[in-house]
């Protein structure tokens, strides 16, 4: 039984997943109350689903990039849950979670996954289809919308993730005959804790036990000063 925790941005996401069945999933925008409500929310979810903490055998967490505060809270909780009973802890890059939840019809299209970075900037990661799934094509970057759009190569892009009004406007106003941008629909472009759970389970299946030691997991902070 895997519990997935995602507090990387203003959304709080939780999921319970067992043997390729998604048992429960909840996600909502809490703003900056993660530190207060994460523990009681987890307790509530377990209770609702008749699951004991002792039933948990794996923990998954969105390990970054994202908000420093949000990541600290989620990763600390995940580490605590995992370390106490020596459970494997699977950290999944926040951008990967977005990508794993997107489909594709044209394998030549690229995918841009977006997260807010604060101070008017965004975190973006580019993905391309490789062996039937979205694969990281470049290191994630922090930039403004204008800087990102100017850096794009001639291609067709899907855009998914957390895109605010500024981003939607930038995408709508973007004109370049060589580049097409397709903004994925509102709910579909959101990252989901159920997808985090699914992806973590998949990685655990194909991974090596050592990769998942709770003590080793460190959050991914981009542009970490000194």
């Amino acid at each position: 039984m895997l519990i997935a925790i995602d507090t990387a941005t203003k959304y709080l996401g939780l999921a319970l997943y067992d043997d390729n069945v998604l048992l429960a999933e909840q996600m909502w925008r809490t703003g900056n109350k993660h530190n207060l409500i994460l523990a009681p929310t987890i307790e509530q979810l377990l209770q609702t689903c008749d699951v004991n903490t002792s039933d948990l055998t794996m923990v998954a967490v969105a390990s970054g990039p994202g908000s420093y505060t949000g990541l600290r809270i989620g990763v600390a909780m995940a580490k605590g849950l995992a370390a106490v009973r020596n459970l494997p802890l699977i950290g999944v890059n926040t951008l990967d979670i977005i990508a794993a939840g997107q489909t594709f019809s044209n394998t030549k299209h690229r995918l841009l996954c977006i997260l807010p970075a604060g101070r008017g900037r965004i975190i973006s990661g580019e993905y391309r289809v490789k062996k039937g799934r979205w694969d990281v094509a470049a290191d994630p970057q922090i930039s403004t919308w204008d800087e990102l759009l100017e850096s794009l190569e001639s291609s067709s892009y899907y855009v998914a993730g957390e895109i605010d009004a500024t981003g939607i406007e930038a995408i709508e106003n973007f004109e370049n005959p060589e580049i097409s941008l397709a903004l994925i629909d509102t709910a579909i472009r959101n990252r989901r804790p159920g997808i985090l759970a699914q992806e973590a389970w998949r990685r655990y299946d194909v991974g090596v036990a050592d990769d998942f030691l709770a003590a080793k997991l460190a959050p991914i902070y981009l542009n970490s000063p000194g």
Partner: protein
Amino acid sequence: MPILREGELDIISHSPEQTRRYGIRLGRLLRAGDVICLSGDMGAGKTVFSTGIGEGWGSQKKVTSPTYNLVHQHNRANDDTLLYHLDCYRMQSIDEVDTIGFDDMLDSKGIIVIEWAERIEDALPADHLWIELRVVEENRRNFILEATGQHYQKLVDDFKNAIFGI
């Protein structure tokens, strides 16, 4: 009493006690989302002034220097608004302000009081109240308030009324 321009105010303090009282008056006027920047050398009165702001606002714990913790978070009895008190003295790069969740503070509609605000000028919202604190001599400090934006111009106006009754 020199008044420079709309939204500007130049005042003198003759003691830490007076500085604190100025702070109290300002603290009483602050509303959710207000950003107050304090800039000036050590000993000019930034922390004393901040302590006054906290008192005027109604902070449950006394506001003290957050130099080592970088940020203190205060609450008060009447509601669940927060007052964040930052000290950017030890920040070596502006990116460090992200690590303490500055953006979350701005979104939270809490009140933000920033000492050594010049260290993070680029991260500040366009509208804010900037207060320059200067040591003139031992019992004399000069505070120059400069408001950016209509909201803060009104705040300075209200502050002037509170001190001088005009």
